[in-house]
């Protein structure tokens, strides 16, 4: 019998029992200070084997091999492979002696932080997991991934197991009392993503005591359709003179866990502080109990930290798409991810719930661009994503590198398309948008559209894609050309929902193409579509009429309880206080006083008569100079300097949109980076903002930038000036190395350094050309350079 069949057989009759802590038991056997538990697999295998045997004797069905921390990142230079093999052998020997038992390969967190906050890339994490799987896959019955905090890391682990073995998988993350991991992943996101990826059981371990679990167990029970696992600590830790003990005894531990079994937990065990006594007690308390699983059929999406059920109309932001958008198209061609990032931020702030990402520009490597765009967007906003492409390579990259549960936009009624895309949707557990179109075009009748929808849904059935993960797009046709089709689209929305029980989506604005006053037609059709039952509206949330219609609909449909969102938006807090004055202010005055709204209004008026370049030269730069001089003299302080810079930046962004690309003049190119090892970049970001406003072209490499990356980017961009920043003493050595390497390839480049640990003398010592103490000093220096 295969392991999962064995497990399912047990679960159909009773609760499955896991073992308890390994570390605690080893400490009781004299595990020394600073000694890694896994080393015992080699030095004292009999002790490890005995612990496994005790757990089996206490009633555990699955024992975790003592391999939790054995990986190439945590154990650089150590024999982690030997420890994994020896650990599995200890567990196997115990099972052989006891007569039965399932051996799990236990894999814990890799111990490094994932990108973008840390250094560990998704691909590197995958490789580390894969190596462990390759070592152990023929020797264990099942894989456990546990105590992981970052959903991205867990996803890499699960894919590594599934793509390199046919082993079943149990995953558990560690949550705090609010039901979030340290990385911010909520319980529901874990379940949504892990169920989608096809793990066999999901749940929590460590960090919490059984007494704290009740609300989290309730949340797990409400969203989980597969067995869920609880493996908590033996109560809350109490530390006395450096020794940790836990406050729950075996009896009360078993009683509480038994209550959670009644709430739906079907796999239970213990983590830190638990021993074979706890497992034995637990086993006794749950005797005769079993759990019946129910399919929750929840339509949901998720990022790594934001979970969203699709149980009311939601907005899908459409701006990250080059179709009909010249600036986005240019940004994709030029790899300008800063622009893409800003579009994500603006839509996030305008209230989008999901972001559509489409990188479809001819003659670019769309899969690579999709991967980069997904990584970039999810590094800055936490919205779930919709991967929008007809290129299956791009869809695959999008689904793989998105942290959460995404939507694929789209398939249609063509068999060939369905066969290419649906396996990817199934593999990554995504939702899929099905367009009611096929190789004959968009059907003209309601029944024909429904027939294509049915074809798509049946194809999804073949790939085991559940109904709740299917979204049908009934397609908006242009009312100016095919007026009668508008109502057919709306009727199709109603019928698709009632006949097939799936969700619907629609790109709305195509309705008005070719008509005058498009905004009026768009928002009216939008309201009609919402009223017809539209679930996901693909719109530009920055357009006020659409957003207003949406909020008004949500109020009237009783989705927006007490009209909170509607009222908040209508009364829109304005932070900027209104200053009473009869005199009309100039743009310069507004920048100096940091009056953003007024500055933007004045700029729009100026742009009617004055060229953007003149506004920058005659109004913005002089105002920034006044602020800068005030800062230098001490009459203006850093917040005012930055506040003025923020306003100037917004004004400059507005102006740039109105200046043709060939007329935009920029001062010299400046590259900025916080050096390798240093993760503090507040100072660098302040400098960047100020310099941008002075018209310098900035290439920002970010923080913790390896020396070779700086060198590579210098060769690529050839900046006139390189600005390096460091906050910590320990990273000044890296700054020195960076300077040496850059000077080797470009001796003419001017290197300026700054940061809390730098002084003129240190700058000189490490080979920098200049030290500047603040952004103002840097702008003065730059103005003197030829």
């Amino acid at each position, binding site marked *: 019998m295969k392991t999962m069949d064995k497990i399912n057989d047990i679960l159909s009759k009773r609760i499955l029992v896991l073992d308890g802590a390994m570390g605690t038991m080893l400490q009781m056997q004299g595990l020394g200070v600073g000694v890694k538990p896994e080393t015992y697999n080699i030095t004292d295998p009999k002790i490890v084997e005995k612990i496994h045997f005790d757990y089996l004797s206490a009633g555990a069905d699955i024992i975790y091999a003592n391999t939790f921390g054995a990986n190439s990142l945590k154990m650089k230079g150590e024999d982690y492979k030997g420890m994994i093999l020896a650990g599995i052998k200890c567990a196997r020997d115990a099972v052989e002696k006891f007569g039965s038992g399932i051996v799990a390969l236990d894999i814990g967190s890799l111990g490094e932080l994932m990108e973008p906050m840390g250094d560990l890339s998704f691909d590197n994490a995958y490789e580390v997991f894969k190596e462990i799987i390759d070592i152990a896959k023929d020797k264990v019955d099942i894989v456990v991934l546990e105590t992981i905090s970052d959903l991205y890391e867990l996803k890499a682990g699960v894919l590594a197991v599934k793509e390199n073995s046919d082993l079943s998988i149990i995953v558990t993350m560690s949550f705090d009392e609010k039901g979030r991991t340290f990385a911010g992943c909520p319980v529901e996101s874990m379940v949504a993503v892990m169920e989608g990826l096809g793990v066999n059981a999901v749940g929590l371990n460590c*960090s919490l005591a059984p007494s704290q679990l009740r609300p989290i167990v309730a949340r797990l029970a409400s969203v989980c359709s597969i067995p869920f696992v609880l493996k908590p600590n033996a109560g809350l830790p109490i530390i006395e*003179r450096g020794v940790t003990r836990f406050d729950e005894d075996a009896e009360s531990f078993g009683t509480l866990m038994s209550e959670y079994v009644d709430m739906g937990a079907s796999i239970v065990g213990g983590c830190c502080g638990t021993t074979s006594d706890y497992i034995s007690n637990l086993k006794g308390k749950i005797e005769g109990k079993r759990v019946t699983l129910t399919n929750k059929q929840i339509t949901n999406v998720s990022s790594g930290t934001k979970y969203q059920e699709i149980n009311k109309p939601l907005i899908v932001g459409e701006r990250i798409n080059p179709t009909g958008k010249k600036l986005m198209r240019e940004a994709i061609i030029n790899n300008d991810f800063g622009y893409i990032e800003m579009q994500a931020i603006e839509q996030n702030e305008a209230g989008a719930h999901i972001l559509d990402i489409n990188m479809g520009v001819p003659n670019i490597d769309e899969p690579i661009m999709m991967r980069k765009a997904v990584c970039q967007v999810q590094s800055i906003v936490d919205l779930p994503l919709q991967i929008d492409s007809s290129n299956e390579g791009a869809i695959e990259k999008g689904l793989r590198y998105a942290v959460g549960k995404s939507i694929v936009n789209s398939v249609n009624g063509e068999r060939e398309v369905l066969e290419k895309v649906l396996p990817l949707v199934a593999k990554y557990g995504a939702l899929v948008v099905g367009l009611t179109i096929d190789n004959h075009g968009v059907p003209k009748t309601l029944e024909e559209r429904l027939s294509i929808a049915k074809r798509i849904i049946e194809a999804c059935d073949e790939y085991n894609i559940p109904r709740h993960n299917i979204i049908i797009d009934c397609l908006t046709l242009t009312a100016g050309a095919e007026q009668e089709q508008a109502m057919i689209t709306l009727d199709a929305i109603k019928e698709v929902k009632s006949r097939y029980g799936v969700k619907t989506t629609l790109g709305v604005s195509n309705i008005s193409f070719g008509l005058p006053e498009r905004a009026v037609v768009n928002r009216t059709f939008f309201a009609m579509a919402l009223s017809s039952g539209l679930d996901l509206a693909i719109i530009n949330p920055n357009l006020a009429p659409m957003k207003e219609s949406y909020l008004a609909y949500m109020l009237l449909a009783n989705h927006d309880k007490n009209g909170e969102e509607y009222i908040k938006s209508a009364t829109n807090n304005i932070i900027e206080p209104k200053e009473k004055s009869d005199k009309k202010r100039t743009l310069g005055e507004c920048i100096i006083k940091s009056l953003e709204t007024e500055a933007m209004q004045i700029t729009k008026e100026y742009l009617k008569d004055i060229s953007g370049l003149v506004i920058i030269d005659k109004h913005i730069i002089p105002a920034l100079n006044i602020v800068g001089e005030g800062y230098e003299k001490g009459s203006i302080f850093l917040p005012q300097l930055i506040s003025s810079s923020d306003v100037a930046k917004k004004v400059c962004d507005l102006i740039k949109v109105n200046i043709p690309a060939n007329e935009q003049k920029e001062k010299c190119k400046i590259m900025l980076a916080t050096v390798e090892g240093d*993760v503090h970049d507040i100072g660098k970001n302040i400098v960047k903002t100020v310099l941008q406003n002075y018209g310098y072209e900035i290439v920002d490499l970010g923080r913790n930038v390896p020396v070779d990356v700086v060198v590579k980017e210098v060769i690529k961009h050839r900046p006139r000036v390189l600005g390096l920043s460091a906050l910590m003493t320990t990273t000044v050595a890296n700054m020195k190395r960076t300077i040496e390497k850059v000077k080797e390839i470009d001796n003419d480049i001017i290197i300026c350094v700054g940061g809390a640990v730098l002084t003129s003398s240190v700058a000189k010592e490490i080979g920098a050309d200049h030290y500047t103490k603040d952004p103002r000093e840097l702008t003065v220096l730059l103005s003197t350079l030829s």
Partner: protein
Amino acid sequence: MSVIDYSQAYAYMKVGNVTPQLENIMVEMERELLYIATPRKIAKLYEVEHLDDSYIIKGTDIVLKSNDINRLFNNVDVIAMECITLGIAVDKRIDYYSRTSVMRMIAFDALANVYVEQMANELSKELQADNTDKYMTVRYSPGYGDLPMLLQPQLISELNATKRAGVIVNTNNLMIPLKTITAFQGFGVKPQPIDYDCSNCLLKECGSDICPRRKS
């Protein structure tokens, strides 16, 4: 009423005069910070052996060989190892504001600095309350003065702070989340000095006028 001491945050921000605009931003940022931060405090007390030039923390591999510690810890018999963090969501929000509003970035960052210090002070008070029979020293962190940063990974490992609070040390011994404090704090039967001195500090030229280590 604010939870976080704005005056300290203004000092970090080098604010001379507080405009109504700035105050509004501070209120907005404080509300957001308190909502997204997940503060965690960990402390463990250890008996120590005091040699001529160092403290050996019993039951661990950690040895504090530091003139500063010797000067600031007067024959203590117990040392607490501490780790306080606001969580990774705070770092992410600072990153977000670095792209959308540098003003908010500065305000949020400064408030987070003050908040994590306040949490650390709270922890010190709790430790003192549990050890009323002893005098408590100042809190001293790896990287201050001559206390090496190399102690950082040892301290994090000993407190199991990666598992218990999500704190990770990178290859340069910097901690992530950024708004994290680690420290040693001693307890002894004799009164403890409270003075600070910049002369041995590696950052003595930093020019900071708000460094708590510069209060002498």
